[in-house]
């Protein structure tokens, strides 16, 4: 009984309709949070006492880096669900994640590079966190490349799902890299339970950006998922109603 919601998530028409209804909510709340976070981060937050205004890069860098890890985790979990329960919708979710994750990984790498130039005196260093984040980008690209190498959708789903699940090991490595190794990258200032090292005027805009980016991801995922479902359900009779203008 308690599993009916799970079974309904396996039904493409149900998910297609649900995604269409939910998208505007996630998109608009994300837009409001990101707009507020940008204003708070650029205008209301005071300059950092060590880094001056350069620290404001955190408001785009940290949420982008969070996206790179969170989207990958979502992709790996849904790929795993697709493998274990042979659920087509789960594979469609995983396939919809890759391009979003790759683009925000690029944002994290480039904004980090711009930040590093002034703080460390170099745009790039083969530091553990930077190196593993770059590897994460190649994982996304490899995942997309592997999918496009198959004509048969089922084989593409299964092969790419194995790659995604195996690669998830990099996510904790990136997250804990600044603790495990003596890294150039500064230690976390938000993700410490109970004692963030920022005053509220700096922290609140950052949290708004984190939440805003997360909801933006959900909205983007829901739109891409609908496209993915339409491409997969070629012969299903419900499609006619779904695409009627």
């Amino acid at each position: 009984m308690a599993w009916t919601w799970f079974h309904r998530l396996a039904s493409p028409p149900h998910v297609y309709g649900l995604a269409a209804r939910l998208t505007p909510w996630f998109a608009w709340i994300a837009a409001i949070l990101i707009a507020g976070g940008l204003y708070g981060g650029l205008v209301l937050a005071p300059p950092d006492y060590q880094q001056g205004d350069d620290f404001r890069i955190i408001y785009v860098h940290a949420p982008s880096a969070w996206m790179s890890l969170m989207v990958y985790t979502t992709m790996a979990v849904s790929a795993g669900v697709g493998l274990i329960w042979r659920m087509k919708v789960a594979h469609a979710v995983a396939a919809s994640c890759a391009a979003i994750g790759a683009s925000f990984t690029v944002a994290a790498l480039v904004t980090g590079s711009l930040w590093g130039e002034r703080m460390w005196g170099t745009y790039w260093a083969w530091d553990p966190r930077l190196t593993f984040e770059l590897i994460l980008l190649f994982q996304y690209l490899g995942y997309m490349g592997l999918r496009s190498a198959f004509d048969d959708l089922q084989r593409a789903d299964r092969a790419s799902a194995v790659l995604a699940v195996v690669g998830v090991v990099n996510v904790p490595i990136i997250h804990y890299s600044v603790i495990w190794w003596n890294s150039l990258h500064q230690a976390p200032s938000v993700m410490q339970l109970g004692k963030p090292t920022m005053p509220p005027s700096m922290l609140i805009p950052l949290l708004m950006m984190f939440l805003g980016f997360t909801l933006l991801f959900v909205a983007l995922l829901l739109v891409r998922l609908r496209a993915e479902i339409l491409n997969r359900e070629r012969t299903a009779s419900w499609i006619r109603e779904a695409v009627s203008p």
Partner: protein
Amino acid sequence: MSGFLGMGGYAAYVWPSYGLTLAIIILNIVWARRLLARSRTEARRRLAMRGEPT
């Protein structure tokens, strides 16, 4: 205002970071919408080819 745009001497680092991130957000929105529009067109075309009313 020039103080805001100047970002305390870090303008050359702060603004490109924000510009790139916002560009990636906008591109993602455009890509996702275009992908869905294309899939809908494609689905309609398939239905039409089977000779059924859409």
